[in-house]
């Protein structure tokens, strides 16, 4: 296949999509994910991320992560200047592998939750949150 610029771009995009990662993963996000997973493959499955479709205000966005068998859940905001948001490590007395918090989003972007499950595997979920500019700019 002729390696035109178009084909190269399509292959690159395809590689991203095949990896299951949000398209515009920054270097910092990739580093954070690699550090968390140790380079292991991330699939889908036992992880739920609940976030509003449209954030009332990007400064305070309520989110929830939950899983049946997660030992640890990492949350990333893929479009923030620094993508890391929080990491939840569940102890022996955690009744559920779930937590809620409120986060800051710099603009419309994907929020990603990656869970490390008891069996050592990794799964992820993502949610696009629209962040808008308010009324009179105020």
């Amino acid at each position, binding site marked *: 296949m002729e390696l035109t610029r178009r084909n190269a771009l399509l292959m690159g995009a395809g590689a991203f999509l095949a990896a299951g990662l949000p398209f515009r993963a920054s270097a910092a996000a990739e580093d954070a994910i690699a550090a968390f997973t140790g380079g292991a493959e991330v699939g889908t499955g036992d992880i739920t991320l609940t976030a*509003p479709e*449209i954030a*009332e*205000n990007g*400064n*305070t966005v*309520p989110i929830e992560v939950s899983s049946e068998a997660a030992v640890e859940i990492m949350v990333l905001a893929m479009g923030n200047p620094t993508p890391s948001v929080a990491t939840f490590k569940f102890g022996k007395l955690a009744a559920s592998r779930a937590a809620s918090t409120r986060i800051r989003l710099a603009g419309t972007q994907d929020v990603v939750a990656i869970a490390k499950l008891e069996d050592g595997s990794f799964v992820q979920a993502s949610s696009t949150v629209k962040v*808008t*500019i*308010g*009324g*009179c*700019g*105020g």
Partner: protein
Amino acid sequence: MKKLTGAFLASALAATPLLAEPVDDTLILNEDITLVTRTAAPDHVSDVLDEVMSGWLFRGTETRAMQADDFDNPGMIFVEQAEEVWNTAEGSEGKSCASCHGASEEMAGVRPVYPKFNEDAGEVRTLEMQINDCRENRMGAEKWKYTGGSMVNMTALLASVSRGMPVNIAIDGPAQSTWEAGKELYYTRTGQLELACASCHEANYGNMIRADHLSQGQINGFPTYRLKNTKLNAVHARFKGCIRDTRAETFSPGSPEFIALELYVGSRGNGLSVEGPSVRN
């Protein structure tokens, strides 16, 4: 000039049917008290409004939920801070607010009737003015900055103990001239964009202004915890910001103009429950 601003306004306020209507929802506080967020308009605005609605009805699902629980509501942590101040002696007289007023719960019924005319002082007073009067003349303590942290926390405490009570601001008698002045301000177009409060909050509530859902501009929920700046905001601070955002020259917190405006705007919400501290955008 007028044509341009009209066109601008028309495009800025394009109605998006999807999110236009205020929600049909009930505010039950702490699974206990039901707050009135929607009621028949008081007589003096019944010619322009059928119903008055709290800003709560114009916000998103998660924001509304945040206000329904005193723990989820971040404004309440500041109410707690004010409670401590309430019970702490300050000033040359060695008194705390509690020394004269008792427990903060005893102050239920105060917030709903402010701003009001004070006979002895011969002027209309806002809650902030009355607090500072107490501090200066009865506690021998320094006045608080009108929209500063200490003051807004205290007005949040006083609002919180009146939640559920209907706003009931007097518009007649000695308060009438102030009310008229406030009404005139509300309907006067000013600034680069030639907008009056009514342009948005009476003629276009329910519509979207850019991505924001325009409310009726009621103040029964003040002081409000805004998600935007993650702190409590006082009424006069909001007036100032709103006017500045519409590119008009604004007044100062505590000014006669804002006192009059607060009296008038507050009275437009007569019948709605006191909601402060509320959670808004």
